[in-house]
Structures are given as structure tokens and as C-alpha cells.
């Protein structure tokens, strides 16, 4: 079980919720439960091979899971997972 923080660009896929608490003992299980509850989110955060997209980082509390145990990183009830996509804003070619 962990609380997952949903960033603004992805809230349209989580019924506008900014955080969701889902079951799972590892980061991989939590993300699987999350995308089962919100199937439209799956294509946004996973590629066709089921791997995390490279422009979305996942943090367990304040640490990037790439530098922990990736999907296998244990997730406890008190942990917060954050999805942090890259954002650029604006139109291509213009300025903010």
C-alpha cells in the first residue's frame, strides 16, 4: 500500500484525483494496481513493452527509483510515490 501523487497533466486519467492510495508491496505492484484501477493511465506511463516511459520519473518519497531497486523497491504504507513527468509548457517554437 502506498499513496501515489498524480501530477496535473495525468489527473485527467485518474478521475481528477491528485493522489490515490493503492495496494502493493513493491513499487512495481503499486504501479500495476494503479493502472488497473485507471486503465487510461497505463498508456501514459508505460510503453508498449510495459516499461516505464523515459520522460516519467517515479520517486519513492524523495528518491528516484532508478537509484533504488527500480520496480522491485519495497513500498510501505507510509511511503509516498510521485509520478513526475517532464513538462515544457507553451507551443512548440514559442516562449512561455
Amino acid at each position, binding site marked *: 500500500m502506498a499513496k501515489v501523487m498524480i501530477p496535473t*497533466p495525468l489527473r485527467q486519467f485518474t478521475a481528477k484525483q491528485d493522489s490515490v492510495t493503492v495496494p502493493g508491496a513493491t513499487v512495481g505492484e503499486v504501479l500495476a494496481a494503479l493502472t488497473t484501477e485507471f486503465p487510461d493511465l497505463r498508456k501514459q506511463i508505460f510503453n508498449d513493452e510495459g516499461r516505464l516511459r523515459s520522460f516519467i520519473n517515479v520517486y519513492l518519497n524523495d*528518491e528516484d527509483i532508478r537509484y533504488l531497486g527500480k520496480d522491485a523497491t519495497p513500498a510501505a504504507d507510509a511511503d509516498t510515490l510521485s509520478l513526475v513527468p517532464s*513538462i515544457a509548457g507553451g*507551443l*512548440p*517554437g*514559442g516562449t*512561455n
Partner: protein
Amino acid sequence: MTLSKDEIQRYSRHLIVPEVGMEGQLKLKGAKVLLVGTGGLGAPLGLYLAAAGIGRIGLVDFDVVDFSNLQRQVIHFTQDVGRNKIDSAAEKMTALNPNVEIVKHEVALSSENAMEILKDYDLVVDGTDNFPTRYLVNDACVLLGKPNVYGSIFRFEGQATVFAYAGGPCYRCLYPEPPPPGLVPSCAEGGVLGILPGTIGLIQATETVKLILGIGEPLVGRLLLFDALGMRFRELKLRKNPECPICGDHRTITKLIDYHQFCGVPQQAETPRQEAKVTESEIEVTEVKEKLDRGDDFVLIDVREPHEYQICNIPAAKLIPLGEVAKRLGELDPEADIVIHCKSGMRSARACGILKAAGFKHVRNMKGGILAWSDQVDPSVPKY
């Protein structure tokens, strides 16, 4: 280098802060900062960096001030609409502090000119709004060994950090690749709270001044996240990626690349109203008007969001937001003559694809969306 009597009076509130003082103010005066973009982030950055007394500020922008910029780009005023942003920004900065030398680079930063432009500056502040330029600024900063003061915004959220400082992590360490176009909505589609770029731009300005003064703890190795709605700042650890292609242990990028190709964005993307590159068959707005006037048997679908429909709409259109199209196919007849529109034609192109994949036979995309409708059919429809 010294400060004139006027400058001493002007910078008095800096000079009496021990951490700045005369020594610090002279460092600011001796500093050369490149500000890429004079838009939402660049507006507060330009004003405050000029006020702070940075000796030379380079500006990069090739855009023109538009009415829709004024909600957040506070360096541009109503009378500046239609002017070049770089002239408008430089004029305000000089009016605020004539001691600052403004260098105007009125170009689109590119792989061909970036190294030449960046090399004369001590640090670079990234106030751009698109992925190709962000990767370009990052790579040029890493290759030249210049700090890159980064900020980005979306709706109510912002991110800020300092990349490539003293061998620290870079943008590619954080995000090795950009999202494919269309997957994540842009500010033009998603909107932004006008005040947000002010908050994030001033975090960048603060870090810029701290780096020049050499005081405090720079925002290096930390990604600051700001949520305006919750009014919360959070901090995530930002590590140098040993696999990073440009600053890692085994570098594969040793010079600037083609960033439009890297980001999958067509080169001529600066003309957003023509951005819809669609393979689905299209229909001109004037032809849609003729069909309506003739009373043709067809269905017009608007795939924008309800809050956009409230701003303006074509009364005959049925509203089905893009995100609901796949679920609401049952409401539509696969044999019907269907025309789909959105704001500018991108989302409707995606909706056409969904319908065609579901076996709908006669689906066309209204070219240019409701913006083109306003231009060519009904000027009373406001553009947003």
C-alpha cells in the same frame, strides 16, 4: 571596476546586506547572463535580473507579443502587442536599469548558433517552453561547462533546478528523452495559471543571483516541485546518471544534434495554427458552413473540453471531449457523415483516427478548428 555614485544609491539595499555588499554588487555588475526566452518565465527574470544590476544580459527570442501573452508575460504591455518580444523586453529592462547592457539575439536558438551565442556568457537561464530548445540548451551548457538555471511550468505546477553546475546532473540525467508529441498536453492546450511562471521565474532569478554571488546553497542535485493549488513546495533528489549520454561515464553525444528530430517535432513547428499534420481526410471550414446552410444530413462533433465549449462554440456541434470519444462511440452511427472539430485541428485529428479505427466510414477533420471558423466563417466567434 567600481560603482558610480548613482549605482551606489540604486543598489543601497544590496550594499548593506553583508552577504552581498560592495564585493557582491561588483560580481553582479561583472556577470554575463543569457536569458533564453522572454515569455512567461523570461518576463520576471528579465525585470528582476536587470533590477539586480547584472552587468550584461543577453536575450534570445524571435517571437512577437500576442494578446494571449499578457495574462502572464508581465514585461510586455498592451501597447506592445504585435511588436517583437525582444525589443519590448529590452526596452523595459533598460528603462528599469540603464546601467545594464542588453544584448539582443533575435534568432531561434539552433544547433548551428547555440555554441557561438552561449560561449560569451557565464551562465544560462532557460525560460523556453518546448522540448527541442530545452534539450539544445542543456546539451550546449554541458558541452561548454556553463550552469543551466532551469524552470518549467504546467497549469498549477512548476519545476526548478540548476543543471550542469560544476559537473552536476543535467536535464538528460533527469529525463533521458522527451515525450512523443501529443501524449502530454502543451500549455497552449492545457493552459497555465498566469502567476505561476512568476513564481518559478523568480526561483530561477534567485538561483542565478546566488550562483553569481557564490552564497547560500545552490539548487543543485535537487528538483524543486511547486504546486500552486496546494501551495506546497517539495524537493526530490536529482542524481547524476552514470549512463547519461552527454555527461555520464560513456558519452555518446559530443556535439549538438538535430533536436527537432530528437523530439519528433517538425521543424516548421513555430506556426502552431498549421500544426495539424493529418493523414485523415480534411474538410475546409467554409465547406462545413455550406453543409450547415444546405441542411445536409451530417453530424458535427466538437471534441474540446466543456470549459472551452463555454468560451465559444458552433451551435450545431455535439460536444464529446476527446477523452470520452472512445467510450461514447455507441451514440454515433458508423454509416453517418461525420465532421469533427476542436480548437485548431490536432485533437480532432486524433478523434478521427479513433472513429476510423472503430469502423466509421465517413469521417472528416475540420481543418484549422474553431480558430479557422472564426477567421473564415464567423468573426464574432472569439479566439482563445
